[in-house]
């Protein structure tokens, strides 16, 4: 198994602009989500973002150019539990990680891919670790399966699989 797939944005390439990391993280999220299958169809493909305005901006850019599963991508800013209906992906920025515990029960078994960006964070399906100079992501297949989602095996070789 390939141990690590990472993306790190050296400031040599992109000076003084932390948003550049989110630019690539957003691209990674789009590519990862393409390799995940959801059980039930719906009108739109909804990605909820908790906390990171930069990522949200990058994802909105992608949503205007691409579709997922033939559906329009809709990016929403999530700030409360009420906004979690009909959501496919929920992203927790580093500073919003604590909210995961509060809503985990509500999301349990629902077909939602949870994505975090904090080293050591438990309960997510995909976790971006170290988003400063490099971006690595961990894959938690068991957590993904618990949410009734299936993964393309090709993804497993691209991230760091955690059992």
């Amino acid at each position, binding site marked *: 198994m390939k141990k*690590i*797939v*990472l*993306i*790190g*944005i*050296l*400031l*040599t*390439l*992109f*000076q*003084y602009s*932390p948003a550049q990391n989110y*630019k*690539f993280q957003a*691209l*990674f999220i*789009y*590519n*990862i989500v*393409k*390799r995940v299958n959801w059980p039930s169809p719906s009108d739109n493909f909804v990605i909820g973002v908790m*906390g*990171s*305005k*930069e990522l949200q901006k*990058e994802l909105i*850019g*992608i949503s205007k*150019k*691409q579709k997922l599963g033939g559906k329009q991508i809709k990016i929403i800013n999530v700030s409360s539990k009420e906004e979690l209906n009909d959501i496919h992906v929920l992203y927790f*920025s*580093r*500073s919003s*990680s*604590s*909210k995961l*515990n509060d809503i985990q029960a509500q999301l349990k078994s629902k077909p939602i891919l949870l994505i975090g960006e*904090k*080293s*050591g*964070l*438990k309960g997510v399906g995909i976790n971006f670790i170290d988003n*400063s*100079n*490099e971006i690595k992501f961990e894959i938690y297949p068991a957590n993904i399966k618990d949410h009734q989602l299936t993964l393309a095996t090709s993804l497993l070789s*691209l991230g760091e699989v955690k059992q």
Partner: protein
Amino acid sequence: MKLKHIRLKNRYVLLLVGFMLISTSLFAQDKSPINVEELSLEQIKGLTQEDLLELPFEDLIHLVKKFKLSSIEELYALLLNPTQSTASKMEEDVFESPLATTVITADELEKSGARSIPEALKLAPGVIVREKTNGNYDVHLRGNDYIPPGSDLTNSVNSTTLVMIDNRPVYNSFVGATFWENLPVSVNDLEKIEIIYGPSAALYGPNAVSGVIHLITKKADTEGLQTNFDIQAGTNSSKIATGSINYNKGKWGIRLSGNYNQSNRFQDNYYIPQNDEYVSGDQVGELNASIDTSFIASEFSNDYSNAIEQGAANLDITYTPSDKVMINYQGSYQSSSAQTAYMDIGSVLSTRKSTSFSNSINVKAGGFDSHISLLSGQLNAVEGMPGYEYDYQELNAKAGYNFKYKNLIIRPGIMANYANYSDENYVDIEANTGLLNGSAELGTVQGSLRLDYTAFDKLRIVGAWLQGYFYQPERNYSSYQFASSYQVNDNTLLRAVVSKSNSSPFVLNTYMDKSIQVPMPTNPNNDEEGYMNLNMVGNEDLAPQEMQMFELGLRKRILKNLQADVSIFYNKSKDYAQLVTDETTLPSGPPEDLAEGEVPSEPMNDITILETMENLDLKSDQIGITANFKYVMNKKLNMSLFATYQHTELKDFEISDPSQYEELTGTSLDDNTLTENSEYLSFEHSYTPNVYGGASINYSPTNKWNFNTSLYGYSKQESFYTKGRDFINVTIDPKLTFNLKASYQINTWMNVYVNARNLTNNTKQEFMFTDKTGGVYLGGISIKL
């Protein structure tokens, strides 16, 4: 006709094939518009989100791998170009920094086996590190040390480098020095050490004259609970223990850390320069008291073998309410005792003890950052010598904002410092037995503006100006820093710097008020005694030391895994200060008509000498070159090599003592010539070694084993020392020391190691008149849970 038809047919076929080829090629380009293999770095920079969305994920990852982002490239980046934020007050690669910059990362610190922060500075180019006693160091950036030569040893302390822990200056304003054993953090608390060379007051305020050493501490940023303990013990009764508990939950991170360090000297006797002899510990107290009658013999520490004992605890709380906002609190307590060289009291070594408590808060919100800290402490710089014990408070506050407009970053900043030092709890104020005899205050406020403009992605121009005001004592001052860098191509960066900085006034230089009264016989007819009164006073009008620097630099990625960083620097320093005899009231003396053998009938007057702290005409010009090479062979092996060559010339060194003149020039002058008109000499300042540098190699043959060897050395150092009319030539021989740390990772949480410092036990003296420092051999265990 048939032939023609066939030819026509062939033509159509050719056209069709051609069309197909072209369309296939177009189609292929359509499907895969970007050939990752052929993209240059510049082309990658220009890729839009649309372009990148077209890439299959594998290609995106491949692109990332190809251009610096694979794990080995990540390693290159990590080892060759760690990021730093001290040079420009914003995160950037070392390669990009317009100033001469070095970063030592936590990983390098851990693998090196460095026992303390000053010892770890031997891993950085351009730093002169001399061990005085086991574990106690003198640290200077690039040199200009012990100026004026021949003066008191207190002038050997580094008063021109600003050392900070997470933006908190740890500078002692009493004499202008960093007492390294007073720092509450250990090597294991550090995320990295960032070093900026050259005058940097325009960003950091006064005292960043020869540069800045910024110690950035670790934070609890990993979710959950982590603990880390490291214990090592070895020869010279060495015991070093550090530990930390980190807990992060959501927006909160808490880190509690502690450290303890104790080690013994390599000898238990003491060198007395004035007598050129070593004496045993139990003789030193009395001997010092006989040389300086104010010294209290019984208070000389009887723990003659102790070199250093220090302990500290730190609490670090970080609150991150959003991605752009971070609030950090640090509270630290430390207690330390070090037997080291500070001033000549007969013995050069004496014990310095201190306790201090500090609180600091750092806030970051978008482009805004601010810091406020308060340190309260008690310090006895020379145990047994009245007047050197004091209570002190240091308050620091600063704030700045990075406005970004297209390619321009504008950073306005404000800073304020206040220091209060008082010896009133330790001396008889009425009898003037102290150095201050009361409390003394220093204060500054500064405003700064920094502009950072990048043109055509290649040319960067940085200008910073600081306008400051010392409100106690009153004075305006300004500092500047102009830097420019030009990115010739992806692998080459040229840079130039012109900058000027001042130190701030120091408490002792400004407010010293010391009286020494030495009994002396004044009436030869009987035992009647008078006194020699020596009054030493500070000077509020003293100009603070100033350095102006010109620097040229080249950074070059010779290969993707080999990087060179070369700096050529020229600096001019002036406004050094020293106690100068201002006024001497001599005894009336015997009558002129006194016959030989006849004794005077009247007693003579007391002698009174007034010494005032005055600026000297002395100037120092230094030119030098530092080269630093880093090479990452592969994941298992990496190395660095660095060296500095420099020449320092002292100009206008005033000399009024004929014996000193003779020693320095080899020619003699009669007393009167020099009394009437001082001579001014220019000569090479050889106390800063002409050549110094080091190297390190890290080898990890397997995931379990790691071997780290480092070496550090310098060429011969020469100077002279005077005490009264005694002139002592000082020669420090060249010295090269090797260190080796070999570690074995037993399992995921336990690592055991052996750590040899000065492996070959080279016992040459590193600092004038201090111990012959040798090897220390330790074994240790590190646990990370």
